[in-house]
C-alpha cells in the first residue's frame, strides 16, 4: 500500500516536511531497534558462533570443530526424523488452531447468552501455564483414574482404557490436539478483535446482493481478515515449530522418539548431554528451516496483497 504523505513547502531554512516526517518515523521505531540489537543480536550471533565448537555446557568451554557438528547432524539418524516429526506436529496443530480459532471467533461474535463469560472461558487454555495444563491432561488421560477413559467407558464407547500417550499414532494425535487446545485462543483473540472493526455496511450490501451466511463469510469476512490471518498464521507456525514444554512434558518424545521434535532434541543436547555446541548447531538448522518457510510465506503474502 503506497503511503502518501501530505506535501507541503519546506519550512523556512529547515528540512522538508517529508524529511522531518521520515525522521520522526525513524525516531518512533528507534526504541524497538535498540532493544533488538541489544538483546537479540548478541545471543543470535553467539549461537552461530558456539555451533562451530564442541562446548561442555556447565563450563561453556570447548574446542573449535568447524562444521563437524553440522556434518554429524545432517548425516546422523536423529536430525531428519526429528524434523519430520516437527513438520507433522506443526502442520497438524496449526490447521486445528486456525480452523477452530476462526470458527470460535465467529461464534463468539454473535449474541450468545453470557457471551462475556464464554469468551473468558475460551481463553482459559491460553492463560493456564503449560506445565500445569500438561499435568492436568496427563491426569485426565490416565488409564486408572483419569476422567477421559472413565467417561468413554461409561458411555460404552470403549471397554478397556485407551493408552493415549504411550503408543502411536495416539501419542502424536494427542499431542496435536492438546497443542491445538492450548493455543487456539490466541487465534480467537486476534480474529475476534479484527471482526469488531468490519463495517456493518459490507454485510448489508452482500445480503442485498443475495449472499447467504456462507457467501457472506467468504466474500466479506475472509478478505477483511486476511491481513490479521497472515500475521497470525505466520507467528503461530513459528511458535508451534519451536514448542518445547508441551511435548516434552506430555510424552518426553516417546514412544521411541516418535514425538521427538527438534526443540526437544536441542534441549536434550544442551542440558542433558551437555553439548552446547551441538545444540546450537541444531538450533541454527531449525532456524534455517523456519527461515525458508517464512520467506516463502512472506513472498506469497506480498504477491497476494499486491493483487
Amino acid at each position, binding site marked *: 500500500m503506497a503511503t502518501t504523505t501530505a506535501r507541503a513547502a519546506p519550512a523556512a531554512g529547515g528540512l522538508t516536511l517529508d524529511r522531518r516526517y521520515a525522521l520522526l518515523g525513524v525516531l518512533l521505531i528507534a526504541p524497538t531497534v535498540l532493544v533488538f540489537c541489544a538483546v537479540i543480536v*548478541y545471543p543470535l*550471533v*553467539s549461537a552461530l*558462533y558456539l555451533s562451530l565448537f564442541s562446548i*561442555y*555446557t*556447565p*563450563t*561453556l568451554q570447548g574446542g573449535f570443530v568447524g562444521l563437524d557438528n553440522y556434518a554429524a547432524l545432517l548425516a546422523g539418524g536423529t536430525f531428519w526424523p526429528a524434523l519430520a516429526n516437527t513438520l507433522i506436529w506443526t502442520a497438524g496443530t496449526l490447521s486445528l488452531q486456525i480452523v477452530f480459532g476462526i470458527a470460535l471467533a465467529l461464534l463468539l461474535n454473535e449474541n450468545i447468552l453470557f457471551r462475556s463469560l464464554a469468551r473468558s472461558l475460551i481463553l482459559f487454555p491460553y492463560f493456564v501455564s503449560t506445565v500445569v495444563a500438561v499435568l492436568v491432561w*496427563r491426569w485426565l*488421560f*490416565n*488409564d*486408572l*483414574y483419569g476422567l477421559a477413559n472413565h467417561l468413554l467407558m461409561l458411555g460404552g464407547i470403549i471397554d*478397556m*482404557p*485407551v*493408552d*493415549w*500417550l*504411550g*503408543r502411536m499414532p495416539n*501419542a502424536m494425535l494427542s499431542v496435536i490436539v492438546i497443542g491445538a487446545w492450548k493455543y487456539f485462543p490466541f487465534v480467537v483473540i486476534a480474529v475476534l478483535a479484527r471482526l469488531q472493526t468490519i463495517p456493518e455496511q459490507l454485510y448489508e450490501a452482500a445480503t442485498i446482493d443475495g449472499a447467504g451466511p456462507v457467501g457472506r463469510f467468504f466474500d466479506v469476512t475472509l478478505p477483511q481478515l486476511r491481513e490479521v490471518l497472515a500475521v497470525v498464521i505466520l507467528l503461530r507456525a513459528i511458535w508451534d515449530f519451536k514448542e518445547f514444554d508441551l511435548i516434552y512434558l506430555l*510424552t*518426553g*518424545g*516417546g*514412544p*521411541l*522418539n516418535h514425538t521427538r521434535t527438534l526443540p526437544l532434541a536441542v534441549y*536434550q543436547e*544442551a*542440558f*542433558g*548431554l*551437555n553439548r*552446547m555446541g551441538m545444540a546450537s548447531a541444531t538450533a541454527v538448522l531449525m532456524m534455517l528451516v523456519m527461515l525458508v518457510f517464512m520467506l516463502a510465506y512472506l513472498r506469497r503474502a506480498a504477491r497476494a496483497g499486491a493483487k
Partner: protein
Amino acid sequence: MTERDTAMKMSAGFSRRGVLGGLGLAGVAAAGLAGPLGGRAFAQEAITLRWWSPQSAPLQLAAYKAQIAAFEAAHPNVTVVFEPTSDEGYPAQFAAAFASKQLPHVVTHLPSFAAQTYYAQGLLEPMDAVIEAVGPGNYFPGANDVYKTGDGKFCGTGIGNTAADMLWIRKDLMEKAGIAEIPVTWDELRAACQKMQGGGIYGAPLPYGLNSMTSLIIIGFIHRAGGEIFTPDLEVAIDSQAAADALEFYASMRELCPAGATNYSWGESLTGFVSGATATGIYGGRVLGNVAAQNPGIADFITCATYPRKSADIPAWTFNDFPSIFIPKGVDHLAEAQALAAFLLTPPGYIQQLHAAPGHVLPVLETIAKDPAYLANPIIEKYPAEVELMSVSAASGNNLGFETAKHKPNLKANEIVASNVLAEMVQRTSLNGEDAKVVLGDTAKKLEALMKG
C-alpha cells in the same frame, strides 16, 4: 570472537575475585572448623549465604526455615537466603550460574552424580572439611563412598538417602490370593502379581515410558540379574546374558501393568500403588506419607522389601540417587558456607527436615537413625521395620554413577540417563518386541559413543 572473549573475560574477572576471597578465608576456615561449628572465628561483616535446593515442598520449606533461623541466631552477622530450584531446570540454572560466577553457597538434594560431574570439571570445593565437622564416625559405614573422587577427596556429602526402588506390596491382596511370603525371586514376583491381578487391580506399575525413571529402574533390574552396565573400570558391559534376562523379564511383566504404563514416570507409578490400583509398587518412602494422606484405607496393609532378584543368590541392589550437599568453587565466605552445610546435618534441625518427608529422605547419619527424637514421628512409628529396612538398603545403595563399591565414579551417568538410551532399550524390547540381544548390541555401541563424549 569478540562476544566469546568478552564472556570469557567476564568469567575470568569474576573468578579472580572469588579465588582471592576463598584464599583469604581458607586460613580462617581451617582454624574455625576445628571445633564442631567454629562460629567464633568468623569475620564480622554482614554476610549473605545462598542455599539452593530442588526439594522445597511446604513441609520441607518450614523445616528449612527453622534451621535457617537457628543458624542465624548462632551467627548474628550471617543471613541465609533459601532459593528453590527444580529437578528439571537445574542444569540450565547451573550452567548460567557457573558461567557468570553468580554462585549459590550451598546446594542440597541434587543427585550424587551431579556432584561428581561438576567436581570433575573443577567446579566444586572438596567437602572433606564439612565431613570432619559433622563427624565421620556418625555416618552409616561407607555412606560417603559414593562421593570419593579421583584425587582422594570428597566432592560432596549426603543430606539424605532415598531407597528409591523398593518393592511395595499389599498384604491384604497377598492374603486373598493365598500368597504366604513376600516374593524374593523374579519367578515368585511374576506369579504373585499374576495371582493378585484381577477385579480392576493390576499386578505392578512398572514404567515403560521414554523418561529417566525407566532408565533408572532398568539399571536396577540388570543388576538384580547379576549384570552391570559398566565394568568397575567403566568399560561397557551391558551386552551380556544377564542384561538380556533382565530385559526379557521386564517385557514379560508388561501384561501385568496398566495399559498406560507405556508413559509412566515417577508420579504415575507412585499413584498407581497409593490409589490401590496396583498390588505392588516400586518406589521410595513417599508411599507411606501419600497413603496416609490420600488412601488411608490401605495404610495397615502396606509393607516393603528389597526388590526381587533373578535368583536368591544374587545380592540385593537398591537405587539411591544420594541427594547430596555440595559447595561450588569460588564462592566467597567459604568458611561460613561450610559451617552452614555442616549445620544442616545437626539435630534437631536435621530431624525436622527428615520428618518433612518421613521414610523418603532417610538419615545419612547412623546416630540420627537411632535417635529417639527422629523415631518419634507417627509414620516412622507406624512402620518401623520398613523404615529401618529402607535406611539400611539406601545406605548401601547404588546408582549409575556408582554401580557397586568397586566401581570408579562414572562421570557420564547424568548424560547417559538424559540421552534416554536405556529407556529406548526397554521400549524396543517391551513395546516393539525386538530381540534383546540385538537391542543390547545397539545400546552398547551408543553407550560407548556417549562415554567417549
